[in-house]
């Protein structure tokens, strides 16, 4: 194409009036204008409604799943909040109990020789730690088995499970951090157990799902 007036008109450097005058004497630009009009007609055909049977159902299912997951996470956060307020009680109640126990212990020691209660606590803690370790190892095996299954999932499902597992792992890490400074805290142990059970269930869901 040797005439550049149509391009200039398209770029806006030539006004409509100037182009209209020019096109009367330029067959090249007339042809371009005709093609442009034809292109507009063809573009209209691209606006036909696409065929997407069942797409809303898919979207609705994934939104419902997301909503349930968000509600579950919210409930967990709320219970953790309750756990935090319980911590205040966890300080006050043992303090009161300790005073009462001191009084009882005074009477008891007077009548009987002292019981090795500290050893019993250490034993229980050791048992819990051993079982926790075994449980975590079993979950790690499950996670290794679930990995190829997750990789084969569609992007949507994979990201759902990945986000869910990441949230649970964050919860587990927080519990472990808290247990480092307070290993005997039964409440935190309970939270850790709940998080581990969630992870086991999520991994079982991955292994049980159709890829």
């Amino acid at each position, binding site marked *: 194409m040797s005439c550049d007036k149509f391009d200039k008109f398209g770029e806006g450097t030539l006004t409509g009036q100037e182009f209209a005058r020019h096109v009367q004497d330029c067959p090249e630009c007339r*042809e*371009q204008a005709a093609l*442009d009009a034809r*292109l507009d007609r063809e573009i209209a055909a691209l606006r036909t409604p696409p065929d997407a049977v069942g797409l809303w159902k898919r979207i609705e299912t*994934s939104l419902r799943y997301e909503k349930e997951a968000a509600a579950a996470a919210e409930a967990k956060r709320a219970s953790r909040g309750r756990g935090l307020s319980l911590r205040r009680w966890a300080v006050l109640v043992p303090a009161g109990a300790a005073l009462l126990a001191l009084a009882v212990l005074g009477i008891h020691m007077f009548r009987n020789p002292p019981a090795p209660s500290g050893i019993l606590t250490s034993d229980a803690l050791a048992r819990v730690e051993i079982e926790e370790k075994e449980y975590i190892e079993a979950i790690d095996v499950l996670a290794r088995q679930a990995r190829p299954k997750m990789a084969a999932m569609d992007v949507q499902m994979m990201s759902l499970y990945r986000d869910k597992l990441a949230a649970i792992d964050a919860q587990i890490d927080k519990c472990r951090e808290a247990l480092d400074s307070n290993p005997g805290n039964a409440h935190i142990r309970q939270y850790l157990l709940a998080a581990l059970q969630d992870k086991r269930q999520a991994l079982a869901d991955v292994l049980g799902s159709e890829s």
Partner: protein
Amino acid sequence: MDEARIIERCRAGDLGAYRQVYDRYGPPLLRTAARILGRPQEAEDAVQETFLKLFRGIGAFRSGARFSTYLFQILHNTCMDMLRKRKPAVADVAEMDVFGAPSSHELAHSLAQAVDSLPVQMRACFVLFAVEQFSLEEAADILGVSVGTIKASVHRARKKLRAWLGSCPAGEIS
């Protein structure tokens, strides 16, 4: 129901409101995704992912902003992510320029195919402005580029498509 009310209900997690968003925007979202990705199945995945991201991020949507622009921004980013994740060999085929090779016109049997063969950024500009009829400013907002870029890209796209159309006798394209 007006859009502000629908958005409010979406924020509250009402799936019925998302259905209304789908009824209103589903077809143009799907068409745009199909043109950007060039594959209908992936376009459906992109629209599904868009709704999921909308559900997660609706709280961050500013009420003064245009909802359709926001929705198409999510879709465009989703499509770009999907294109990036594609295997190189497959992406090469999708990006094949049917305008360049002498015998390649045979590959483009329809205008849709010719559009699919435009370079991805040019294609996105063209689809949003010329097909879905967003304004230059809205298309620029969606794609995160200047109005000048949209203008130039649409102009170049139309030029290529006119050339392609000129080589197809009237009535021959499907």
